């Protein structure tokens, strides 16, 4: 008797698993058709946004991901901000002027208050910047405002920023990232730790509550200096699993989802209640080809061969369904100042690649390791496999190592990445300084293990030249050298897909942030 009962268990569990599996598949069809009709067409009272990654801190000084920037944009303000075309416009500062090459004077908007009712003054501006550049706390964002030497309070509504050397992109640095203005008195009484979970700003939305990994709730600030927002509440929910986000959108539980896999876009386009927003991103994808190690990649011909061997067009058009733009031989797109629009991508030319390999003495190819994070960047592992497949065509045998993002970041900072490593980079300063300097200058912590004295000279000079025409020329020359040296395999500029319930008033920006209340 007992044996008989035991015998049934595998069958029963098999049936259960099969039913569960069918249920998951079936839900996609049933769920979309039935529940979508139950939803009201308009819910302007609240917008719920499902983010692709978790939020770690609400204190902008310690930000860890672009998703946190969406929250900062709603809760805080910056001295200057950007309009829809990304031009710098007034924010908390209504006007500014340069006193000399190193001195900027900002005139603050009168009558702006923090959410706790206290007025925003020059003291708060000084405090907000000092706490990032100063030594009185460990701050990972220090380098983002590294050109600022000192902040001086002239009067309650006038503040001066002194830079260490002429900084052509000071306004860009202040227009986001860590340039958010926080209340001095409030933080001094409650402390940084409390502020990281209980932020107070001057922005269009007030912080209400945050349960980490579950949801963050914001509420309209009726006293906002630029006019009260029309949408009463904004809720952010981190949902790391793409298929779960899709299910939430289809069932109407959320209004906006971040990062729809490109292969799922057709499925959403078929639903008349939903739409896809494709946003070309600042983020560029590339593979680091370590030229600082002994081995095949130390030879520039091998690095060029790899660039010829990969069909970038094919990867963007076939694997990403056309969502993406092939990089023009540089790791940035036209959104950045300094973009060289006459540089060309390496063409797809396997014969030329084999020729170069043979010239370098690797006619029979070689074996090499490739590191990629799994599930952090759009189609990361798929793209790594595609590139590995193409390199095998010219005799390079690639062994892929796909790791969790945290492992990847650790190895990047320890400088122990594989000879070929997937990279993706964006800097919301919208300036080549954030890309060419931080990636290609010698010994930068996030750099691509590349060193060329001439490039160093060029980007250092561009960093402290105020004449923008001259800066363009400096970057132009640096980019040409880098394209030729090929310290990376240039891939593509990413396009991020967001799924939204039709008519939801939300904007997706090139720096991957969501904007519910535009400040322009």
């Amino acid at each position, binding site marked *: 008797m007992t044996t008989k009962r035991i015998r049934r268990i595998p069958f029963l569990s098999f049936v259960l698993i099969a039913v569960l599996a069918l249920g998951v598949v079936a839900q996609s069809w049933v769920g979309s058709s039935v529940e979508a009709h139950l939803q009201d067409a308009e819910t302007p009272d609240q917008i719920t946004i499902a983010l692709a990654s978790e939020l770690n801190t609400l204190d902008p000084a310690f930000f860890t991901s672009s998703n946190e920037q969406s929250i900062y944009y709603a809760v805080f303000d910056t001295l200057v901000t950007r309009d829809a075309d990304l031009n710098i416009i007034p924010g908390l500062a209504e006007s500014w002027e340069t006193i000399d090459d190193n001195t900027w004077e900002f005139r603050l908007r009168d009558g702006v208050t923090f959410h706790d009712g206290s007025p925003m003054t020059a003291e708060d501006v000084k405090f907000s910047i000092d706490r990032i550049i100063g030594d009185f706390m460990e701050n990972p964002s220090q380098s983002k405002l590294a050109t600022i030497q000192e902040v001086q309070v002239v009067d309650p509504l006038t503040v001066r920023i002194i830079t260490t050397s002429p900084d052509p992109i000071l306004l860009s640095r202040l227009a986001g990232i860590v340039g958010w203005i926080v209340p001095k008195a409030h933080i001094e009484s409650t402390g940084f730790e409390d502020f990281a979970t209980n932020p107070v700003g001057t922005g269009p939305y007030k912080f209400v509550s945050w349960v980490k990994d579950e949801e963050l709730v914001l509420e309209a600030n009726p006293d906002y200096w630029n006019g009260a927002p029309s949408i009463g509440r904004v809720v952010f929910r981190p949902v790391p699993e793409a298929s779960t986000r899709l299910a939430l959108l289809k069932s109407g539980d959320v209004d906006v989802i971040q990062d729809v896999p490109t292969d799922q876009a057709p499925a959403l386009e078929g639903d008349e209640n939903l739409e896809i927003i494709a946003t070309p991103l600042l983020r560029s994808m590339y593979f680091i080809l370590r030229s600082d190690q002994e081995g095949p990649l130390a030879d520039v011909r091998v690095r060029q061969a790899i660039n010829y061997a990969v069909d970038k067009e094919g990867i963007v058009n*076939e694997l990403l369904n056309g969502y993406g733009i092939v990089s023009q031989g540089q790791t940035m797109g036209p959104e950045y100042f300094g973009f060289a629009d006459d540089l060309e991508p390496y063409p797809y030319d396997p014969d030329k690649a084999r020729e170069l390999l043979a010239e370098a003495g690797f006619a029979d190819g070689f074996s090499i390791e490739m590191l990629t994070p799994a599930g952090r960047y759009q189609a990361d592992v798929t793209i790594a496999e595609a590139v590995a*497949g193409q390199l095998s065509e010219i005799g390079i045998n690639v*062994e*892929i*190592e796909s*790791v*969790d993002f945290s492992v990847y970041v650790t190895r990047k900072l320890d400088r122990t990445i594989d000879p070929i490593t997937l990279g993706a980079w964006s800097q919301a300063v919208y300036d080549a300084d954030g890309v060419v300097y931080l990636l290609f200058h010698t010994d930068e912590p996030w750099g691509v293990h590349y060193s060329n004295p001439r490039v160093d000279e060029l980007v250092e000079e561009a960093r402290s030249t105020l004449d923008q025409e001259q800066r363009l020329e400096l970057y132009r020359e640096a980019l040409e050298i880098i394209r030729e040296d090929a310290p990376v395999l240039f891939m593509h500029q990413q396009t991020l897909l967001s799924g939204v319930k039709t008519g939801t008033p939300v904007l997706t920006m090139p720096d991957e942030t969501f904007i519910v209340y535009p400040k322009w």
Partner: protein
Amino acid sequence: MAIAASSTDSTLAIQRPSAVHRWLQHLTARPSGLLGLVIVVTFVLLAILAPVVAPHDPLQQNWKVRLEPPLTSGDDGQLYILGTDSLGRDILSRLIFGARISIAVAVLAVALRSSMGVLIGLAAGYYRGPTDAVLMRLADIQLAIPFLVLAIALMAIIGTGFSKIVLVLGVTGWVTYGRIVRSEVLSVRERDYVEAARAIGAPNRTILFRHVLPNVSSSIIVISTLEIALMITAEATLSFLGLGVQPPTPSWGVMVADGRDLIYGQWWVSAWPGLAICLAVLGVNLLGDWLRDVLDPTTRGGALQRRLSKRDA
């Protein structure tokens, strides 16, 4: 002389067919056991003959025919029975080659687990005393850490890849064997024939491996079979999490992970490898259940087996 010879022949003649016959009887009396055997044999054959039976190269990418649904032929006119994945690789071929990985990892890991466990169990049960105490406390410590958590932690430390997953799955599972073998040895070592062996001065090694081990072997076989199923899922789990076999090597776990984000539109990318894992585990479990009943000393079949093995010894 003639009589004696014929009687020997007849005992042999009766004994051998009857053993085979009984086993066959067990199989037909338990169709689930037969089903398990058929499934396992099929997977093993597929794994061995993979290069012959797979219709395509499992690593060959063809971006023009990516995500073709099952039973369609792509633009290239080729038929893809189970469809293609996001890089245009044939899923059926990847499944067949994936069977190699699953079976190889499972068999090697179980071999490692069982040999460690058996040695430790034999030592603990036979020598008893402090050896036993130390080894069994070690077992308690290991049991206190959930197996998968331990495996994930170890993989994260030593890195990924085929040999490492075998090693990690192998060294984390000796306790089950160790405990069962120990308890059986505790009773076997008191048997008369062990006493007799000791009395004529046989060395411990001989007693352990000649007289004790064969008599606990049926338990080892049953646990090993059931553990194969556990190892198949463990490999798939670790590979799914990105800690096991690395892409593009076709492991079932990696394949399920590949299709995770596509489950809405392209269910076949992860459904087939999921089904393969289900089937393989089901088959091994059915076979294991049947083996347990046949070999278990408390059931009739087991008693028979015990008698046969004793006579052989």
